């Protein structure tokens, strides 16, 4: 067979095309196998890391349709393995849950929300022009948006990942949804939502947008997304919506009784620490900061009412445990926290 695609490109596709183009990545890998490794200048396949981003996982997805009402779960319209329905909200939710399941499974070895393969349930078309998506303790629920500010909430993979990550937090660290621990709960969902998107795109930390909810605003809104993890406060600036109010530093921390104590606002502070550390380390964020954050969530050491300082200290501790004292990972993470005004005590020797 004639080889048209040059080996360096095949190599890139095989490594980075990711689950977005699993067939392309698989084909590229097979094509590479046919080439003698010496000519390619790369290691033969069996030396590649075992966690390749495009190995399929086995989710058990169930998508229901609330048909414009606010009752749950609604009518079951697509089960695992069933073909696309032609309803974009249903099919986007199905695909997004698949991408999210794959990242948790392949990268962190976690099969579904509970780590034991529990079904991933979602309801779409919730309510009448409903401007929201949420996790109700059992399922992810997505509104269609009002069509003026928000288009549907299933249009963004980071939003789907965000909602599913609320389920993971509920089954692991159980961060209380109030004040700083609530903002950390939000942060964890944003962080894993961003990682799901980056993983599906095969994107490294430098190339990633670090935006949450890109594409859920209509064209009438002056804004790119709901939030920017890297530059909180810059996601939108619009006549109707006003300006993105997220702080990116402790000096701007917002005390408020709204929104369970500003959980969607103050999450900007840990979000920026996470994104800065990821960008400093470079490469795929799920391979370093993602692992550290997952370790913290599942360590059993994080109190449910942890504040930012405690969470930050746990990330540095987990980075030391995984990568060694004074490792690049530990230093980058500590610098990320310092940049948002969270100084950590020097680690005990």
């Amino acid at each position, binding site marked *: 067979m004639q080889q048209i695609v040059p080996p360096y490109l095949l190599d890139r596709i095989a490594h980075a095309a990711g689950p977005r183009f699993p067939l392309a990545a698989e084909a590229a890998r097979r094509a590479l196998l046919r080439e003698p490794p010496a000519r390619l200048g790369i290691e033969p396949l069996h030396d590649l890391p075992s966690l390749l981003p495009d190995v399929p996982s086995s989710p058990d997805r169930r998508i229901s349709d609330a048909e414009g009402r606010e009752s749950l779960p609604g009518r079951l319209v697509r089960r695992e393995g069933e073909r696309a329905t032609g309803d974009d909200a249903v099919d986007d939710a199905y695909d997004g849950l698949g991408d999210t399941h794959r990242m948790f499974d392949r990268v962190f070895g976690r099969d579904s929300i509970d780590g034991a393969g529990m079904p991933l349930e979602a309801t779409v078309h919730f309510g009448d022009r409903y*401007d*929201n*998506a*949420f*996790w*109700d*303790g059992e399922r992810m629920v997505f509104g269609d948006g009002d069509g003026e500010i*928000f288009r549907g*909430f299933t249009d963004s993979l980071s*939003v789907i990942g*965000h*909602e599913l990550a*609320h389920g993971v937090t*509920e089954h692991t660290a159980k961060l209380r*949804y*109030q004040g700083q621990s*609530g903002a950390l*709960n*939000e942060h964890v*969902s944003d962080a894993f939502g961003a990682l799901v998107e980056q993983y599906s795109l095969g994107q490294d930390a430098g190339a990633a947008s670090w935006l949450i*909810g890109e594409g859920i605003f209509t064209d009438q809104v002056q804004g790119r997304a*709901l939030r920017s993890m890297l530059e909180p406060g810059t996601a939108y600036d619009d006549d*109707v*919506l*006003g*300006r993105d*109010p997220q702080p990116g530093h*402790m*000096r*701007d*921390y*917002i*005390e*408020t*009784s*709204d*929104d*369970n104590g*500003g*959980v*969607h*606002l103050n999450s900007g502070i840990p979000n920026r620490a996470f994104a800065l550390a990821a960008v400093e380390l470079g490469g795929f964020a799920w391979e370093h900061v993602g692992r550290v954050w997952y370790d913290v969530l599942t360590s059993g050491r994080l109190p449910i009412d942890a504040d930012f300082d405690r969470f930050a200290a746990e990330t540095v501790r987990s980075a030391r445990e995984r990568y060694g004292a004074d490792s690049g990972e530990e230093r980058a993470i500590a610098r990320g926290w310092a940049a948002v*005004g969270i100084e950590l005590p020097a680690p005990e020797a």
Partner: protein
Amino acid sequence: MDVIVSRSGGLAGLRLTWHVRVDDQPDSDDWYVLIEQIPWSEPPPLPPEPDRFVYRIRCELQDSAPASRAHDATLAERQLTGPWRKLVDLVQDRTEPERAAPTRRPTR
């Protein structure tokens, strides 16, 4: 009396506020009846659900009406049923929301 509904939270964390002057409504008597039906002291705190809306509903008096008629309650979206829901629907039907920045009280 003024009825002020503010909705905060949600995935987007955007705050909307609706403000109605009851005495300017053609059916103000019905409003007062509805407001009396609401069990103001009752909504028990519910464990918050991630990304759901939070509603704060206030009835504020102008001038010299008896103070017992002022009300203030915070409800999870799931608790917005019965007369609560009816009042919020009515308020949202009669007026356009204002989008307000969060009340900012920096601590550090």
